[in-house]
Every structure is written in structure tokens, then in C-alpha cells.
């Protein structure tokens, strides 16, 4: 028997390899078609949506309540920009405003809270960067009440209804609390869902002052959310309603294809 001619041998190997290459090419094309064609879940093919949720799980485990978003010197402030009117009515009178809080521990009815009551709580001020999902960012000095302090007074309820409800919940035991917070504007036109971990982060603020001035209407007067561990679209302007809930809340932009978690 003669040894195979190397040129012929390589041609034989090539045929096999290029068949593999062709199959891989078709497989890649088919894979893309398959992915893009999946049933949409809130504006995204579901495998992409599931992956965002998978990433959320990873970052929930990695989340640190002591890791602070970078703070800046007030001199480093940049121009404050207004980026969308969703949920903000043109004619809004902040004088008659009250905040409605649902499902607070020990309250069967919604709690109505005035701005004066909020301003009596300890005031916090810091200068942080608001990062927009579009890519731009701005450095702003915010002042208001830490949500932690607000929640210490108006507590979220227990996740497990069988828990001993005579003892008030402990904010440090986050695994005992309901999982989420929902917020919406007074007209319901804009709404966000947030995880308890992020809302209790020490830099999350119920904010009434921006760059040393009371909030203006287009920045969400009289009270807005500032949450530097989230993209800008979670920083709801003009809070009308806050609800503690154990069901994953709806979110305006998440319904349009964006990440629900939106953690930074």
C-alpha cells in the first residue's frame, strides 16, 4: 500500500473542515434568527430578558451597602439638565401635595405624609453623579432625607406573613422585609420598581433640594427620588405614592425593553 499523497490527503481534510465551517456558519445564522425571534418579554426576546435577570441575581449577591457611589466637590457640579417630561403635568400645584405611603408596618390604611413632616427628619446633603442610560451624566448637589431614615419611621412590612408581627421589623435584616418598593408620580404617568437593598442604601435620598435651591417643577418638585446606585431612569421625579410590596413592581422603562434592575 502506498502512503497517501499529502496534497490529496490535505484536500480530504479540507473538505471535512470546510463542511464543519459551513455548518458552523449556518448554525450561527440560525442561532441569531432563533434568539431574535423569541417571544418578547417586555420589549426584549425572552432569552435576553432572562439574561438581564441572571445578571441582576449576580449583582444582588455582590451588592455592598457600604460601597458608596463617588462623591464630588460641589464646585465640580455640571449643568443640570432636564431629560423628559414623563409623569410631570405642566400645571401642577405643589402646595397641595402630600405623599401617600401604602403597606407601611402597623398601618392598615395608606399613610398621608406632608412635606413638613419629611423635612423634620435628619437632612442629608451630598454631591453625586447622575448617570443616564443614554450615556451622559451630570454632577449635582442633592439634599433631602435618606430613605433609610424615612423607612426607620415608616417601616416596610414582613415578607412572611407568619412572622411575629408584634415585634417591629429590623431594617438590618433585609431578608425578613418585603422585597420591593414601588413609586409613582401623582398622575401615575411614570413609575419605578426598586429592590429593597438599593432603596435602603445610605445614599438613596428623598430629595427636596437641588444645588442649594428648592426643587423646581421640571426637576420633580416638591419631592423626588435620588438613587445613585441606579441609572437615572430610576430617579423618579415628583413622588406621589410609595408602596412597599413583595411582588416585583411595574417599571415604566423596564416595560419598554430596559433592564428592570438598572443597578450601577
Amino acid at each position, binding site marked *: 500500500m*502506498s*502512503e497517501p*499523497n*499529502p*496534497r*490529496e*490527503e*490535505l*484536500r480530504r*481534510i*479540507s473538505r471535512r*473542515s*470546510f463542511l464543519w*465551517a459551513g455548518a*458552523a456558519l449556518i448554525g*450561527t445564522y440560525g442561532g*441569531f434568527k432563533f*434568539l*431574535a425571534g423569541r417571544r418578547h418579554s417586555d*420589549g*426584549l*426576546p425572552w*432569552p*435576553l*430578558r432572562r*439574561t*438581564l435577570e441572571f*445578571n441582576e441575581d449576580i*449583582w444582588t449577591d*455582590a*451588592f*455592598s451597602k457600604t*460601597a*458608596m*457611589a*463617588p462623591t464630588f466637590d460641589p464646585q465640580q457640579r455640571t449643568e443640570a*439638565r432636564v431629560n423628559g417630561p414623563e409623569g410631570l403635568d405642566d400645571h401642577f400645584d405643589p402646595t397641595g401635595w402630600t405623599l401617600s405611603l401604602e403597606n407601611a408596618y402597623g398601618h392598615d390604611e395608606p399613610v398621608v405624609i406632608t412635606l413638613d413632616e419629611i423635612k423634620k427628619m435628619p437632612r442629608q446633603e451630598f454631591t453625586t*453623579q447622575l*448617570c443616564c*442610560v*443614554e*450615556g*451622559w*451624566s451630570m454632577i449635582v448637589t442633592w439634599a433631602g432625607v435618606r430613605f433609610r431614615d424615612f423607612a426607620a419611621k415608616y417601616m416596610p412590612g414582613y415578607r412572611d406573613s407568619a412572622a411575629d408581627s408584634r415585634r417591629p421589623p429590623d431594617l438590618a435584616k433585609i431578608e425578613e422585609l418585603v422585597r420591593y418598593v414601588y413609586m409613582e408620580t401623582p398622575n401615575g404617568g411614570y413609575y419605578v420598581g426598586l429592590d429593597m437593598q438599593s432603596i435602603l442604601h445610605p445614599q438613596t435620598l428623598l430629595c427636596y433640594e437641588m444645588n442649594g435651591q428648592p426643587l423646581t417643577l421640571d426637576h420633580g418638585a416638591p419631592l423626588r427620588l435620588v438613587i*445613585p*446606585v441606579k441609572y437615572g431612569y430610576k430617579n423618579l421625579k415628583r413622588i406621589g405614592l410609595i408602596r412597599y410590596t413583595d411582588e416585583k413592581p411595574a417599571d415604566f*422603562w423596564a416595560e*419598554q*425593553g*430596559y*433592564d428592570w434592575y438598572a*443597578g*450601577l
Partner: protein
Amino acid sequence: MSEEQPTSEPQETVEIREKHPLAIRWNHWLNFPILFTMIWSGLLIYWADSQPNQDAGHFYRIGFGNFTLLRLFPDWFYRPEVHGAHLVPALDDGHPLYNLSGRLAEGMGWHFFFMWLFVINGLLYVGFTVFSGQWCHLVPNRHSLIEAWQVVLHDLRIRKEPPPEKKYNGAQQIAYTIIVLMGLGSLVTGLAIYKPAQLSWPAWLGGYGGARFLHFWLMMGFVGFFAVHIVQVIRAGWGNFRSMVTGRELVPITPPPSEEPS
């Protein structure tokens, strides 16, 4: 079948030599659709930041100081259909592949899916080259720089002598090592954009804005690499291309065989 006739010479002057291991070939070719999808979805994301009304768009330009030669990218780049470039029939809201405007959420969905494939493929590639010993062909040594210079001169037809015949010449060693470091850079700057608040080290990269700038220009570097790579692959010819698919190449027999095949 239009294959050339098998040679009828009784004595062969060539033999088959293994060139690229199977793992590296898979890593190499898989990286093509993965990186393509990362760049494509990245452009969907970047569109939102490069509109004329977006301040942050001032990063993405070719210029110096206050002088801007070219702002990246003009509208026709994102909406070719609107500007008369109907490459293939498109849907009402544009073509799913090449209309890149107004699709930020979709871009992020793809980007944060394919980032996993990009990282896994990269780790497998680096892991394989390290454990198989292939790294010693790839990592530059003290001769690589001068050799790379000679390769450049040769390719530009300034120098006559061809580069030494070996698996990777100095220019390739430098290029193929830098591209791996660029992949690592894309991962690091990508994380800095992804979690600028919870991670503290992104401040070293200039924070959210600075990391976006670096991430963008690394992407441009990949595109530049790709362009040069294609030209060089065409220049190197069919045998070289085939070796990246089959893993094998034909080389002249050296030294001459001591006995005749029977």
C-alpha cells in the same frame, strides 16, 4: 468539483504539518460573530449618546482641544435607509441589522447577553494558550520589535527580504498579544461603565464618562485590527487561510526523507 488534478509525481516534495490546534481555531472563529454582535449592539447603545443634542457626544470625535475635525458618527451612519441606502428591503421601522437608531434598550439586551460569550471565549483562548504551551509562539520576545519593523518595511515594499518563516513573526506576535490585552481592556472598561457606583476602581479610568471614552476607542481599535487583519490574510494567500480552518498546512519536506515510501 473543480479541484486541481492530483499530482502524479512519484516523489512528494511536500508534507502536511499541524499548524493551528483545534481549540484555537474554534476560539478564533467563534470570536468573529461574538465580537461582531458586541460592536453592533454597542453601536445601538452608543447612538443614544452621540446625537447632536447630547453633550457627552463630544468624546466621540477626531480632533484636539477645541478643534474637531470629525464628529463620530454622522446621521447616515445610524440611519442609512433615511439617506437612500436601501441595502436590502427593510421593515417599516428600519432594517433590524443596519438601522442603528432608536434601539438603545435592544442594544443593551444583546450586549449584556453576548458579554458572557465574549468573556468565556476569551478565557478559554487564554487558558488554552497558557496550558498548551502555545503562548511561547504568541508572546513577543526581545527580537519581536525589530522583526515587526522589518515586516512592516517588507509589507510596504521598502525592504526586500521577507520576514523569517515561522508560525508567527514579530509583527504578528505583537499584534496578537495586544489584541488579547485590548479584550481585557474592553472587559475592564465595560465593567467600569456597568457598575460605576458599586465598584470603586472605575474612578481610575475617569469614572462613567472616562470609561465610556476608553471603551469606545478600544472598539475602534478592534475595527482597525480587523481591517489590517483582512488585508494581511488576503496577502498571505489561500494556504494560510486554509490552515486556520483545517489546522494544517503543506510545507516542503526538510530534511529529505531518509527512506522511500514503499
